[in-house]
């Protein structure tokens, strides 16, 4: 048994070899393949619940089904996802969950609405499927129409992916198709296995943690 002195955070997705980034054990592999899958679980994940379409929504500036990059002061920039009616998911740099939570609570305090903010960083798995062929891979596991005119960049939706309920967020990167997939932590390994299986004919490779793409990129 290992004598761990510094507590390491681990994603549910097994990787080998690993390196440590911001207290997280992450995949050390770097792939230059045109189609990649990366484990983004270390990102901070904060959930906001508030009434569907009132002051909280206005304060957050994101409505259901859409995403936006929002600056949260010292907490930095987050990707804010309108993940369900009355539900938002804020994704930020590893280690910033507490700050994001505080910033969001502060921002929403003025609304007078019934609001709750919950850190779900450790409760969810998050991966990014990146590359022009990403829709082909997803078409093997998910019944959503990924055509541009149906689900353009910046779309957020929840559906069943390989029989796991998953938030699917289209978050293109420099004009290249890119999707974030977010599900319950315990299903993370299974989801990745299903994606790799579906992606192998398209040459899908695993790459290391990428982190959030900032809005300026």
């Amino acid at each position, binding site marked *: 048994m290992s004598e761990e002195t510094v507590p390491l955070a681990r994603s549910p997705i097994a990787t080998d070899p690993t390196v440590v980034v911001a207290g997280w054990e992450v995949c050390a592999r770097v792939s230059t393949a045109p189609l990649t899958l990366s484990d983004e679980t270390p990102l901070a994940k904060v959930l906001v619940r508030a*009434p*569907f*379409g*009132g002051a909280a*929504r206005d304060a957050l500036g994101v*409505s*259901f*089904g859409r995403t936006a990059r929002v600056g949260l002061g010292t907490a930095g920039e987050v990707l804010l996802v309108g993940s*369900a*009616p*009355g539900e938002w998911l804020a994704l930020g740099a590893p280690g910033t969950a507490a700050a994001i939570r505080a910033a969001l609570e502060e921002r929403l305090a003025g609304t007078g609405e019934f609001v709750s903010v919950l850190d779900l960083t450790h409760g969810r798995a998050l991966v990014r499927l990146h590359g022009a062929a990403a829709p082909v891979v997803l078409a093997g596991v998910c*019944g959503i129409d990924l055509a541009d005119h149906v689900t353009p960049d910046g779309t957020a*939706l*929840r*559906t*069943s992916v390989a029989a796991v*309920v998953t938030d699917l967020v289209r978050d293109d990167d420099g004009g290249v198709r890119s999707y974030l997939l977010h599900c319950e932590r315990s299903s993370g390994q299974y989801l990745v296995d299903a994606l790799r299986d579906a992606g192998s004919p398209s040459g899908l490779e695993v790459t290391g943690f990428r982190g959030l793409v900032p809005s300026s990129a």
Partner: protein
Amino acid sequence: MMLLPCPWCGPRHAGEFRFHGAAGTRPDPATTTPEQWRRYLYVHDNPRGWQTESWYHSAGCRRFLTVERNTLTHEVRSARDTQLDAAPNAAEDAR
């Protein structure tokens, strides 16, 4: 399987939802008789045609929906968020 037009998520495969059946009215537990209560428990309309029923979008928005559906043709006439119907000022951005 048919498509259900979720008022939030748009048309989705019915497999994403869970069927909760025709909605019944709960008798007042303080005054109910066994007959009334068991009607509430066990007896539901079973029409061959239009029915108003409850569905839960468990793999999507996780909202309970009130759906008017034809049990023979599977045509859907309307699908609304149950809570918004019950509390109309809860939100305005239900599509």
